[in-house]
C-alpha cells in the first residue's frame, strides 16, 4: 500500500449536520474529561459517512477545532488508517479483498472484472460517476472467498459472471442483494450441514 493521495478538488467548508453533531458529542462523552481527543477516529468516520464516503481536508480542520487538537495530529490519523478515504469514491464503493485465501480462490479475476467494468485504475471513479473500486487487505470473510465489500455490505462466493451481474445492477442504481452468491447461509456448507446434525443450535 502506498501513501494515500489527497484529493486535489477540496470543498471550501465542512461542518457536521445537526444529527452528526449530536452523534459526535455522544462519542466524545465516551471518553473521560480531558481525553476528548480519543474520539478523533469516531469523528473522522462520522465525517466520512456524512461526506459521501470520503474525508476532505476541511473536515480534518473542522474536527481538529472540534476536539481542540493540532491539525497535523488529525491528518496523521486520517492518513494512517486505510479505511479513511481521502479522495472521492463512487456511490457504490467496491472493496475487493486480495489477501491470500481470496487470492487463491480467484480474487484477481474479480480485480480484472472491476478494471474492465468500472475503471481501469484503482480509486478512479467510473465514467458514469457511479462507482469506484480498490484492492483491500483481508475483510475477514475468508471462508466465503472470493468476496467484495460494496459500501456496508459483503458479497460473497463470487466469480467473474456473478460480479459482472452485480456491477450491471449497480450501474442502474440498484443495490444488489448482499450475502453468498452460491446460496449458502452465512458460512455454512453448500449442501446443508454434514456434521453436528443432531444438535439443534450448533
Amino acid at each position, binding site marked *: *500500500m*502506498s*501513501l*494515500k493521495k489527497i484529493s486535489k478538488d477540496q470543498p471550501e467548508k465542512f461542518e457536521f449536520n445537526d444529527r452528526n453533531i449530536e452523534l459526535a458529542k455522544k462519542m466524545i462523552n465516551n471518553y473521560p474529561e480531558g481525553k476528548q481527543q480519543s474520539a478523533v477516529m469516531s469523528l473522522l468516520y462520522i465525517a466520512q459517512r456524512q461526506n459521501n464516503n470520503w474525508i476532505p*481536508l476541511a473536515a480534518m480542520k473542522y474536527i481538529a477545532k472540534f476536539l481542540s487538537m*493540532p*491539525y*497535523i*495530529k488529525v*491528518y*496523521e490519523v486520517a*492518513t*494512517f488508517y486505510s479505511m479513511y478515504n481521502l479522495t472521492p469514491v463512487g456511490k457504490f464503493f467496491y472493496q475487493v479483498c486480495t489477501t491470500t485465501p481470496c487470492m487463491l480462490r480467484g480474487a484477481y479475476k474479480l480485480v480484472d472484472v472491476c478494471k474492465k467494468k468500472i475503471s481501469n485504475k484503482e480509486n478512479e471513479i467510473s465514467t458514469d460517476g457511479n462507482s469506484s473500486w480498490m484492492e483491500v487487505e483481508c475483510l475477514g470473510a475468508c471462508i466465503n472467498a472470493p468476496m467484495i465489500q460494496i459500501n456496508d455490505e459483503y458479497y460473497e462466493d463470487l466469480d467473474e459472471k456473478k460480479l459482472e451481474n452485480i456491477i450491471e445492477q449497480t450501474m442502474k442504481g440498484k443495490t444488489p442483494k448482499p450475502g453468498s452468491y452460491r446460496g449458502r447461509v452465512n458460512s455454512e456448507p453448500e449442501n446443508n450441514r454434514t456434521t453436528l446434525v443432531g444438535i439443534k443450535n450448533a
Partner: protein
Amino acid sequence: MLKLKVNDKDIEIEEGLTVLQACEQAGVEIPRFCYHEKLSIAGNCRMCLVEMEKSPKPIASCAMPAAEGMNIKTNTPLVEKARKGVMEFLLANHPLDCPVCDQGGECDLQDQSMYYGIDKSRFKENKRFVPEKYMGPLIKTQMTRCIHCTRCVRFATEVAGIPELGAIGRGEDMQITTYLEKAMESELSGNVIDLCPVGALTSKPYVFEARPWELKKTETIDVMDAVGSNIRVDTYGWEVKRVLPRINEEINEEWISDKTRYACDGLKSQRLDHPLKKINNEFKKISWKEAYEIIAEKIKITSSDKIAGFVGDLTNMETMFVTKEFFEKIIKSKNLEARDDNTYINTEERTNYLFNSQINGIEETDFILLIGANPRLEATILNARIRKNYVANKTEIYSFGDIGDQTYPYKKLLAETKIIREIYENKSEISKKILDSKKPLVIIGKSALNSKSGKFIFENMKKFLIDNKKITDEWNPLNILPVNASSVGSYDLNLVNNEENLILKKLQENDFEIVFLIGQDNLKFKKKDEFIVYIGSHGDNGAEIADVILPGATYTEQDGFFTNLEGKLQKAYRASFPPGEAKEDYKVLNELSELLKRKKLFQNKDELIDNLLNYLDLNQKKIKSKNFSSVDYIDEKIIINPIDYYYSNVIARASKTMSECRSIKTNLKKTGTEG
C-alpha cells in the same frame, strides 16, 4: 538505588532510569537514532537492542526501564546480529548519496554503519522515493534520506511547542511533513537540523558550503539576545559558515534560537572595512591616522560637556570599559549611556537588573507573572524553559495584556498600571497567588520598564516582594528581562547616566556637538549639526548619519566578555578576524587617547582585562543604600512594544536569511504583538 549488571560489571544507579542510561553509566556506548535525552522516548529505531537475561528476544534498551537484578549484555553475538539486522533494514531505503549529502562527516547513520553496516545490499527492489517537503527558508529537506526516528516531530511538539510537524502514512510510506507544507512557525526550528541523525533535514543557508572536517571550530558565546547561549562557530578561512549550539545545562541546554544560528551570514555583508569620512554627503576612504587626527582636532576645540557617547547592544565589556575610561579620564565627561531608550534601571544593587531566579530556576517555579515581557521573542531560549516547566507542572502563568502565542497558555490580565497597584496593595487575586506560591517568578520586561510607569512598576513590585518576605537568600522572584547582550554588562559598568536617560533627551534636543556611537544603531533622533563618530562593524543606521566611520569587529572577530541576563560573566572567543582595515573595537578609543594624551589608556589587552575585572569586583562588593523612594502613580496602559525579532540588531539586519524569515512571518499572520 538499583543494582544491576552490565556486561558482568556490577553497577548501582538511581531509580527511574532506562537500561540505555544504565549502560551509559557503566561506560558502555549504545548506538541509537530515535533516543534523545531531552525528548520523550519513542523506541522506534530499534538500534539500541541489547540482550537481557531471561528475555527470549533482545530488548530496546532506550524504552526499557532499568530494574533491580537485571543482567544486561551488550557485546554478545546475538546483540551484534540484531543490530546488524536493524541497520540493514534502515539502509534498505536509505539512498547512497553520502558524497553529496550535507550531513556527510557528522552523520549518525554513516558513523554507525561503520560498525553495524553490511558491505553488500541484499535489497534488490527499488528504493523508496519521497518528494521533498517545504519547511521554510531555514530547513532544507531531502526526505528520501529519512529513517523515521521522529526526533523532529517530538522536538516540535514538546520543546518548541508548535505541533506542526507530523508523520503521515505508515510503514515504509511514512513521511514527515508540516501541515500543508508551510514554514515552521517557531524561533527554535533550526534545532531539528541538529537533532536529525541523517541528512533528511539540513540547513538551507549552509547547503553545499563546506564539509565538517574542513571547518575551524571555536567555542564561544552568542550575542543575539541577553541569554548568552553557548555556541560553536565554524569558520572556513575568514568566513563564518555556521553556528551550532554547545551544551550548557544552565543556560541553553542543547538548543539555540534561529537568530543565533542563522544571523551569521550577516557577518559577511554590509561590513565596514576602511575608515571613512563624509565629504559633501559622500564617504571617502581615509587612513586611520587621518581619522584619529580629525577626531582629536574636533575634541580639542569642543568643551567636554558637549561630547556624548552611546554604547550599543552588541558591544563587549572590554570596549565598554575602554569607552568609560576614555570619557572619564581623557574627555572628562560623564555623558555616556548604554541604553537606547528610557528603560528604567536601578543600578544601586546588582539584583535590581538581573534575572535573579536564574534560568535553571524557572524549572522550579510554581507561578509565573509576566509584566510587559514577551519572552518568546525577547529571550527565546528562556521561553523554552518556561514551556518546559509548563509541560511538566502545568504551572499557572499570567501576563499583562495579550503578548501573542508564547507556545504555552497563559491568563491575560488587564494591561494597566492600576493592576500593579492592586497587586501591591494586596487587593488582587494575583497578590494572593504570589504569596501562596513557594517559588513565584515575576518577570518584568523591557516594555514595562520603558513606559512612564517603569519606575513605579519596578519599585513597587520589589517593595511588595520584600515586604512579604518573598525575597530570601535561596530564592529571588524578582526578574528583569533585558533584551541586549550588552545590557547587563553595561549596568555592571555603570554606563547608565541616570534613571530617565537625560543624555538621550539632550541628544534628541540636539544639545551635543560631538557624538560617539560605539556600535549603537538603535537611537531615535534627528541629526542636526553634530559631529558623529561611528565605531562599529556594519553600515547601518549609525554609520549612515556618521561624519567619521571607524570600522570595528563583530563578536566572532574579537575576544570579549559578555554578562548574560543572569549575571554570568562569559567570554566570547575570536573565531575569525576583522575584514580589511577594521580593528578590534577596544583598540580604537585606546589609540585615539594616545593621540590626545600621548599615552594609551591600557598598554595591552591583559592590562585592560585586569582593570576591568578589578572594577567589576569592587563594584559588586560595594554596599549600597536600600532605601525605597515612593513613586508617583500614573494611570496608564502598559503597552507591549512590537518586537521585530528577525531585525533586532545590525548583524540580523544585514543577514539575508533573517530578511527571508521576516518577510515570510509578516506575510503569514499577525502575532498579536504588533502593538
